[in-house]
């Protein structure tokens, strides 16, 4: 009888379990959104579960109380630098790895072993190197370590290898130079890989906290995560403004993820399983 059940049985227990899990996963999002709209009064126990008298006051407050625009611009500049560099550098490296050349095996080994070095473990010398390059407190200094990603190099390599060889050969016989083959022929054919790379590198640089924390001291150069953690240290954690700030920071990342989750997940899993 155990065997007969799976086929015709209704799926409601599965739905029930999944709905419960989803609710648990969503509660923190709901709670921060609620607080950002209503604030919280520590003397009013119990906390109301539903937003009571919601208003956008705290969002306006954030806009004027802190240099939100400054943080946003800094974050956007660093993210753009990282994303653009990632697409070009990873595509170039990935393309090079599809060709045969002496030292190819060693290069691949080098990349794979670099992947086993978590960035956090390099933080002290990385800071000293950046200082030596006179890049502390600069956009470029914040962006540089993130500008190429090994996972994405291999995603590009796989995408290039999927392109029919005859197409490239034909172009080459016609005397098209290599760099034009790259940008006119191959890049358009690897749109999915590019999309994956854009999304992954954007999310990584957008959320990056430890590295900017180390290399940036100048308040005018701080990115959103730094601004957020600074704001936390100067305000009471009961003010709605803190959570309004949170919401404003979360929205862009979440939006991009929801719009492009397929590419995002594909990139993460292919990176995770293929090395």
């Amino acid at each position: 009888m155990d065997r007969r059940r799976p086929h015709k049985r209704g799926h409601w227990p599965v739905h029930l379990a999944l709905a419960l899990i989803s609710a648990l996963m969503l509660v923190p999002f709901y709670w921060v959104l609620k607080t950002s709209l209503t604030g919280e009064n520590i003397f009013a126990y119990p906390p109301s579960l539903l937003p009571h008298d919601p208003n956008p006051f705290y969002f306006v407050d954030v806009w004027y109380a802190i240099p939100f625009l400054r943080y946003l611009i800094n974050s956007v500049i660093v993210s753009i630098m990282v994303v653009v560099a990632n697409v070009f550098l990873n595509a170039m490296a990935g393309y090079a790895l599809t060709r045969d050349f002496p030292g190819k095996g060693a290069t691949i080994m080098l990349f794979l072993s670099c992947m086993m070095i978590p960035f956090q473990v390099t933080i002290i010398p990385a800071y000293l190197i950046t200082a030596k390059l006179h890049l502390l407190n600069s956009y470029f200094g914040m962006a540089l370590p993130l500008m190429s990603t090994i996972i994405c190099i291999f995603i590009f390599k796989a995408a290039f290898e999927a392109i029919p060889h005859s197409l490239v050969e034909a172009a080459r016989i016609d005397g098209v130079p290599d760099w034009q083959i790259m940008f006119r022929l191959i890049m358009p054919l690897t749109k999915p890989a590019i999309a994956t790379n854009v999304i992954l590198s954007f999310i990584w640089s957008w959320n990056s906290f430890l590295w900017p924390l180390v290399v940036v001291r100048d308040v005018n150069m701080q990115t959103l995560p730094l601004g957020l953690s600074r704001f936390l240290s100067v305000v009471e954690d009961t003010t709605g403004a803190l959570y309004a700030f949170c919401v404003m920071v979360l929205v862009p990342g979440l939006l991009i993820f929801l719009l492009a989750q397929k590419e995002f997940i594909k990139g993460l899993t292919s990176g995770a399983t293929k090395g």
Partner: protein
Amino acid sequence: MAERAVDMAAAPLGAAAARPTFWARRRSRELGLIWLFLLPSLVIFLLYRIIPLVWNVVLSLEFWSPYRPARFAGLYQYQNMLFYDDAFWKVVGNTLIFMASAPIGIVLALGVALLVNQQIKGRGVYRTIVFMSYPVMTVAVGIIWQWLYNEKVGLINYVLISLGITNRGIPFLESFQWALPAVILASLWQVIGFYMIILLTGLQSIPPNLYEAASIDGASAGQSFWRITVPLLKPSLFLCFVVGIINSFNAFDLIFVMTGGGPGHATDLLVTYIYSTAFKLGHFDYAAAMTVANFVLFVGLAFVANRLAGGEAGAVKRRA
């Protein structure tokens, strides 16, 4: 550009007389281009992965600070770390506890993955919701959770009091007993979706006819889970575990925001302790020694996990 013009002019001349030279030159130009394409990435990884790794080791064998010239220290820093710094052992213990929480998350995620893997309506929506916390900014996650844990008006304390589990709010993040589990829970909330996605990919790569064959042979659901699903999921489980270990590095953001490592060193992990030793106290040399220890710990655990997974995961990795 000029060089290319010369090449173009020279090529037709040489082509008739000496074909090999033409091809050789073309080949060497191609090689140059290949290395040119690889160069920027190689420079970045050299600057920010390889050199730092070596420099860490060098730094850990010195007395050094930004204001003093380096002096050779031998194993002084390591001696200090292993025998005279109680905080170091506390922090290593915390890091291990943090890593040990990964299997809990992986088991939970496996449950969710099995549910989502069923042929039901709306499973894409469930999957998105469970995964949604992963790409979120960790600093914001920290702020959200420290708010949920708030002693007076936090949602978690409210629920606990309403259920009658406790009669007054627990100051989770200020308590020596609860701070670390509290941070771990927040971290699990964020990473569980990623585990789920990895396991789901693994589940979907198991050929369904294996289950059909097993059920024809009269295997129960439990038997086919333990005999088919689990063994074939080993590489995915290994990957999850490595992600879990790496997650203890990424927990920096969370801990920095939620507790700052406190109370005492109750929530300090190696990453946060290294950060404060180097960038708050200025003891770069000592922090470098701890970084080396951290890296050894990471590689050792990854190696053991790979062995337990039967080495298959390594094979998958190398193939790429």
